[in-house]
C-alpha cells in the first residue's frame, strides 16, 4: 500500500487569517478517508492546496508522490474533485458540464455516467441556471463519480441532497472503494463519514487534532452507559467522585454517563451496589467523540483564541 496524500506542517494564511496551521494529513491508497471538522476549520483550503489552486506558505504537500503546485495539471488527470460550493456555467446544460469536465480531465466511464444520471434522477438537458442547489450538486457529483480518476477529492459532497440521493451517493462510494479508488471525503456531518470511512482525520482551526483508524479512535474513548438501578440514593455523589466519569445525569432510578476505559470497573461496581436492573452500554458515536475533542480543546485553549 502506498501513500496517496501526504501533508506535513502545512501552513496557509490569508492576510491575518490563519487557515491552516501546521496540518498533517496522510491518506493511503484505497482508503476512504474522512476529513472532519466544523465550518471554517480549513477543510476546503486543504483540498485547494492539494489541487494546486492555492500555494502553501510552508510545509510539504505530496499528491500521488508529486507536488501539486508544480504539477497541478498532470496530477489532475488522475484526480476528480467536487468543490464545496458548486458553481456551474448558467448557459450550459448539466450533461454538457459533466462531459466537459471529464474531457478536460481525462476519461469518463460511460456506463457509470448513464447509470448515475438515472440513479440520481437528474435531467441532463436542463440549463445549469434552472437547476436547484441540490441538482447542481448532483451534476458535480455525477461528473466526479463517473470519472475514471483513481483519486477523488470530495468537499462536503452531500450538501443539499435529500436522504434518498444521499443513499445513492453512499452506494456509489462503496462501489468505488471496492474498485480500489482513494477518496478524501470532507464533511462536518459525522454520521456520513462514520458509515463510509475506514480512516478519519479531525481538523480544528487548521490543525489535525486526531487521526487514525476509526476502530482505534473508539478504543481510546469512553463507553456510554444508560442504566436503571433499584435505589438511586447517593448514587449521584458516588459516581461524580468516581474516576473517569463524565456527563452524569441521574433522574429517579435512571443513570446516564460516559466513562473512560480506566473508570469502568469502579463505575460498574457502584451500579451493582445500587441494585442494577437494566444496563445498556454502547461505544461512542463519532458525534460523541467529536464533541469531546472540541470540549477538551476549548478547555485547554487560551481565552484569547476564542475571541472573534
Amino acid at each position, binding site marked *: 500500500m502506498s501513500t496517496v496524500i501526504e501533508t506535513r506542517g502545512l501552513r496557509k494564511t490569508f492576510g491575518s487569517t490563519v487557515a491552516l496551521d501546521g496540518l498533517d494529513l496522510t491518506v493511503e491508497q484505497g482508503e476512504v478517508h474522512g476529513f472532519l471538522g466544523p465550518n471554517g476549520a480549513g477543510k476546503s483550503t486543504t483540498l485547494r492546496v492539494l489541487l494546486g489552486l492555492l500555494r502553501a506558505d510552508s510545509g510539504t504537500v505530496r499528491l500521488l508522490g508529486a507536488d501539486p503546485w508544480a504539477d497541478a495539471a498532470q496530477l489532475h488527470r488522475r484526480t476528480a474533485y467536487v468543490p464545496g460550493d458548486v458553481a456551474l456555467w448558467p448557459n450550459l446544460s448539466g450533461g454538457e458540464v459533466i462531459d*466537459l469536465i471529464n474531457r478536460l*480531465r481525462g476519461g469518463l466511464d460511460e456506463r457509470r455516467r448513464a447509470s448515475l444520471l438515472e440513479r440520481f434522477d437528474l435531467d441532463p*438537458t436542463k440549463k445549469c441556471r434552472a437547476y436547484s442547489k441540490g441538482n447542481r450538486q448532483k451534476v458535480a457529483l455525477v461528473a466526479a463519480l463517473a470519472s475514471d480518476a483513481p483519486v477523488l477529492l470530495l468537499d462536503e459532497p452531500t450538501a443539499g441532497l435529500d436522504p434518498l440521493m444521499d443513499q445513492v451517493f453512499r452506494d456509489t462510494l462503496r462501489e468505488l472503494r471496492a474498485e480500489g479508488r482513494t477518496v478524501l471525503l470532507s464533511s462536518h456531518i459525522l454520521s456520513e463519514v462514520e458509515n463510509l470511512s475506514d480512516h478519519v482525520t479531525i481538523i480544528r482551526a487548521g490543525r489535525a487534532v486526531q487521526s487514525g483508524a476509526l476502530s482505534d479512535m473508539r478504543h481510546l474513548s469512553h463507553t456510554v452507559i444508560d442504566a436503571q438501578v433499584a435505589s438511586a440514593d447517593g448514587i449521584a455523589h458516588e459516581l461524580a467522585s468516581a474516576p473517569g466519569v463524565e456527563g452524569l445525569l441521574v433522574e429517579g432510578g435512571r443513570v446516564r454517563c460516559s466513562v473512560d476505559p480506566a473508570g469502568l470497573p469502579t463505575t460498574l461496581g457502584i451500579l451493582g451496589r445500587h441494585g442494577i436492573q437494566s444496563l445498556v452500554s454502547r461505544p461512542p458515536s463519532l458525534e460523541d467523540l467529536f464533541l469531546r475533542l472540541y470540549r477538551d480543546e476549548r478547555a485547554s485553549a487560551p481565552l484569547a483564541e476564542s475571541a472573534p
Partner: protein
Amino acid sequence: MRPYAGLGTMLRLALRRDRVLIPLWALILSAVVAGSVAATLDLYPDLAGRRAAALAADAAPAARFMYGPIHDPSSLGGLATWKMGTMGAVFIAFLAMTVVRRHTRADEEAGRLELVTAGLLGKRATLTAGVIVAVIAVLVTSLLTAVGNTAVGLPASSSLAFGATWAAVGIFFTALTALVAQLTQSSRACAGVVSAVIGASYALRGVGDVSGQGWGRALSWLSPIGWPVEVRPYAGDRWWVLLIPLALSPLLLAAAYAFQDRRDLGEGIIPTRPGPERASDSLSTPWGLAWRLQRPMLAGWAAAVTFLGLVLGSLVTNVDQMVTPQTRQFLEKLGGRGSILDVFLSVEFSIAALAVSGYAIASVLRLSSEEASGHAEVVLSTATERRAWYASHTVIALAGSAALLLLMSVAVSLSLGLQNGDLAGTLGTVVPAGLVQVPGIWVVAGLAAALFGGARRLGTVAWGALVLFLLLGELGDLFSLPEPVMRLSPFAHAPRAPAEAITATPVLGLLAVALALVATGAALLQRRDVT
C-alpha cells in the same frame, strides 16, 4: 402580505451598497462637464470666435453624428456643453441600468433575494427599492451638473434644463431596465438587452442628426438619447420635449410591476430552453469552453460595428461638398491632415478603437468573473494548465477586437465603395486604416490581462484606464495638457490613417507593449492563488 412590506429596509440596504458608486459617478460626471464648460469659456472669450467654432463643428457630419447639432451658434452654453450633453446622456443611461440591475436581477440570480424574500418582504419591495435608488442616483447627478454649470458661469435656468434632460433620460432607462429585468432570466442578458437599446438609440440619434431635415430627422425623435438634443438647452430650452420620457417611463414601470406580480422568483418571462444532453465535440478543450462563453458578446458587438460601419460609410460620401474651410480646420485638429474624407474616416476609426477597447476589456475580464464565480476552480481542477485557461480568454479578446475592426472597416468600404464605384480601391485604403488601430486596443486588453494576472479584483482598474484614455483624447486639447501626458494613451500613438501615412514604428511599438503586458499577466497568474 402587503406588496411593499420591507421597502424601507431594502432601500437602506441598496443605498448602503451604493454609497460609493453613486457619489463617485455624480462627482466625476458633473466635474467633467463643469471643467469642459470652463475650458470652452477660456478658449473662446469673444462671440465671433465662438460663432465660427460652433458653425464649423456643426457643419461636420462626423461631429453631428457623434454629438448632435449645435442649434444656436451664438450660444455659449450650447457650444460648451455640446459634446458632454449627448455623451453624458449615454453615461446616465448606463448608470441607471447598472444600479437597477444590480439590485434586482443580479441579486435574484445570485440567490441573495431568496434569503431576503424568505423573510418579511413584499413582492414589490426589491424592485421598488432598486428603482428609487436609481432615480436618486440620476437626480443627484443631474442636479449637481446643473449647479456646476451655473457655478462656472452659464445661465441658471438653461443649466437646469440641461440637468433635466439627463434626469429624464436616466429615469427612462431606469424604467426600461426594471422592465427588462423581469423579462430576462440572467442579469447578463438584461445588461445585453439594455446596452443594445442604449447603443441603438445613440446610433439612431446620430443618423437623424446628420440627416438634417425631412424623414431622417424623425429618427432623432424616436431615440431616447435624441430627446436631450431636441430639448436644446442653452438654445431655447424646449422643456416640453421632456414630456415624452416622462410619459413613457410610468408605462414601462407599470409593465415591469405587472410582469413581476405574475412570475416566480428566479424565473424570467422569456423561458429558458433545454440544452443538449451531451456536449458537442467542440466543447472538449478550454478553448472550446472560452469560445462558447464569449461567443454571444462577440456576436452582439459584431452586429453593432457592422451596422455602424454601414451607416458611417453612407454618410461620408457627400462630406466633401458639405464642408466649409472652418470645418476642415476643425476636423484636421481631430484627425490630422489629408483629404477631408480621409480625415473624417480617421476620426471615426479612432472613436471606434475606444469603443472596441471596451469590448476587449470586457472580454479579458471574463477571466475575472470566471474566477469570482468559482467556474475557474472547476476548470483548473481538471488537467487544464493555468496558462491555457488564461490564453483561451485573452486570445479571444485580442482576435475578437481585431475581427471587430476588420468587420467595421469592411462595412465602411462596402457602403462607400458601392457608391463611388471603386470597391477594391476603397477596401485598400479603409481596411488598413481600421486595422492600424488594433495594436492600441491590444495594449488596453493587455493592461486588463496584466492587472488580472496580478490579482483578480485588480482587473477592473483597466476600465478606469480606458476612461482616462478617452478623456485625454476628447478633452486633452481643450485643457491644453502637456504632450507627455497626452501620450500616455496608446491611441495617441496610433497613426491617424488614412489621413496620415501608416508608419511601422508606432505600430510595432504598441504591439511590443501589448505582448509584454499579456506575458506579464500570464507570469503573474502562474504565481498567485486562485480564489
